[in-house]
């Protein structure tokens, strides 16, 4: 009695295709694997002379960034262009859209431009869900980061990077290190790793940077690097924002670096072939030592390359889910 519906069903069409991509949580393993397979083929393609495919020709992708970002925005833009879509980039000042009515008005204006897809970044958790619930059914919504909730394309590019280097997820022990509390990346990584069947997921952070009850997401909690990194195959570092020092979460950057910064000594706790990842931009000397970030076990630049391929895969999959939805509901598809 009085229970809510399955919240993530909104992401899928009736026959299980991807319609919006809002969170990695609750998506079936086959779907995540399909995204990775498709992305793999795009990685190979990006090494060819002609890097474009016509999958989204005639379609308009609007990048709605309510929060500043250069890296994510440019990789989404490049991904859409390589799929031959028309791209509209909108950096929307958040201070003028604090109120919900403005956000809704913004959406209606953009719908009137007949976009087929919104790529959305917003500082409020749940913003992508809100937009997906309020746009016309003809628009697919891709979450490019909402508050602390989710950043599913980042998580998928991390999964692709892991798979390309380690193959199977089943034997892997993965540690996520740093500011878990404020991290949408960590949440999306955890859901994706669980669904893809990683053997063990660990989070390592001081208690002030761990959400309470994080173990309910299926992770093991460690507060020291020496124990947390032992026998780990993959180390995923997170970015630490400077403002964390001001709210009594941490005493100083240097103390954080001493305890949780990844240097060569701490890396030695992990398996000899452990790889190191970071969503960027990195704070050298805060989360990670330069020698590690630039070292042979760092996959940080591979992540960027894979980011374009994963976003191409997600855009094309969501578009085809969207098109099948439209034809199901009897609307004519005009090429």
């Amino acid at each position: 009695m009085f229970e809510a519906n399955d919240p993530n069903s909104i992401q899928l069409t009736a026959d299980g295709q991807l319609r919006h991509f809002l969170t990695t949580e609750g998506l079936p393993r086959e779907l995540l694997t399909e995204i990775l397979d498709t992305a793999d083929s795009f990685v190979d393609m990006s090494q060819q002379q002609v890097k474009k495919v016509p999958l989204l020709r005639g379609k308009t992708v609007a990048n709605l960034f309510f929060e500043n970002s250069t890296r994510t925005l440019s990789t989404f833009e490049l991904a859409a262009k390589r799929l031959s879509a028309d791209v509209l980039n909108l950096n929307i000042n958040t201070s003028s859209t604090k109120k919900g009515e403005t956000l809704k008005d913004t959406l209606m204006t953009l719908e009137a431009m007949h976009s087929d897809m919104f790529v959305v970044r917003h500082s409020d958790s749940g913003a992508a869900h809100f937009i997906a619930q309020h746009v016309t059914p003809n628009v697919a919504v891709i979450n490019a980061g909402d508050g602390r909730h989710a950043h599913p394309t980042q998580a998928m590019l991390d999964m692709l990077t892991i798979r390309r280097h380690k193959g199977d997820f089943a034997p892997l022990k993965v540690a996520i290190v740093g500011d878990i509390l404020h991290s949408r990346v960590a949440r999306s990584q955890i859901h994706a790793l669980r669904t893809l069947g990683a053997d063990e997921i660990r989070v390592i952070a001081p208690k002030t940077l761990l959400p309470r009850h994080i173990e309910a997401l299926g992770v093991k909690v460690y507060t020291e690097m020496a124990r947390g990194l032992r026998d780990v195959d993959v180390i995923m570092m997170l970015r630490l924002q400077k403002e964390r020092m001001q709210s009594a979460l941490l005493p100083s950057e240097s103390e954080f670096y001493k305890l949780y910064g990844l240097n060569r000594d701490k890396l030695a706790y992990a398996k000899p072939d452990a790889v190191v990842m970071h969503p960027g931009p990195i704070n050298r000397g805060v989360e990670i030592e330069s020698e590690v970030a630039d070292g042979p076990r760092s996959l940080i630049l591979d992540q960027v390359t894979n980011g374009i391929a994963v976003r191409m895969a997600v855009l094309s999959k969501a578009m085809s889910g969207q098109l099948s939805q439209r034809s199901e509901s009897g609307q004519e598809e005009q090429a």
Partner: protein
Amino acid sequence: MNILIQGGRVIDPTQHWDELADLYIQDGEISALGEAPAGFQPDEVIDASGQIVCPGLIDLCTNLREPGYTRKGTIASETAAAAAGGITTLVVTPDTQPLVETAAVAELIQDRAADVGFARVLPMGALTRNLDGEQLAPLHGLASSGCVAFTNMRNPIASSQTLMRCLEYAATHDLLVIFQAQDNALAANGCMHDDTTSTRLGLNGIPEAAETIEVSRCLLLVEETGVRAHFGQLSCERSVRMVEAARERGLDVTADVAIQHLLLTDESVNGFNAAYHLQPPLRSQLDRAGLRQGLVTGTIAAICSDHQPHDPIAKQAPFAATEPGMSGLETLLPLSLSLVEQQLIELPQLIETLTAAPARILGIEAGTLEIGSPADICVFDPNAEWEVSEDSLRSAGKNTPFLGQTLKGRVNVTLMDGRIVFRR
């Protein structure tokens, strides 16, 4: 005007009455129960067969929005909704614009309510000026202008010394203080219960300690000052236990709970549905069980609606950016009846929590069908089903998580002072 309410199951906990009977009303008062008074000639007969006849409900916490926020609701619209929900007395919050911190505003609210005439409206006054926790509001003057209780709402008084003085001053004049306990530093930026769901959704949590720390501080100062005190809308199991322990030590404190906290948990926030954005937040299953247990043992004496109507815009934003609160006057009774269906409590005990208990907490003469008392009466069909929809709700606020659901129990007639103020 003489009214006969015929053939209903009359439940009046104050008289331990629960049987089929006719109820006779003369000149706005209850004149007889069972046998007709000599020479009684009804001008109107209400057929209550198959229905329950009970005292009009008393809601301990309603936000009327007027003056100041009439885009969300007006005294006319919300008291009409109350009548449709069988509620005849509303205790209303002081957070209007201007605030209820002057006699003029307190009187204005009561005058407007009397003009529209759908329900009795009893204002709560601000405990401190501007609700900012620094200077005492004119409590005695406000009480003389009809304020039945005083609250600082969810703006706790930062200085414990100031809080103690407020309580001492209220105790001087034997005034009731209502706490809506929340530590604002711990609740800062939070929009839901701090637990696994908030962790998954990446929403800022409000920890249980935000309520329990303030409940604990208030209890200690109530004991110190001897003020008449009541805790409104408890949300945590631990708060219930603290109030229970204080009562066992002999402290005369009471508590209520909003019906939604007896039925829902924080898991409902999954999917970011802003209808579930409430203040205090919906909490864990353990908390809900503790609140239900508190109701059974009597530690929680009353159930309220915590009615907070909103305009549609207020809920159309990402979850944390929406305004908290739900519209609840018209669902208070049917949702409460589900507790009987779930066999948590018996119907007469439920009626008590909605009528006699809140009257006792407030120290007012209401919530009874005794001979000679004002004829505030609710007649409802406990088995009638209806769908909660924007059309079926009279409140200007359509912001309820129960929208689209079918509820059981529907009010058919409401009388206030022997006048029919609602009839389906």
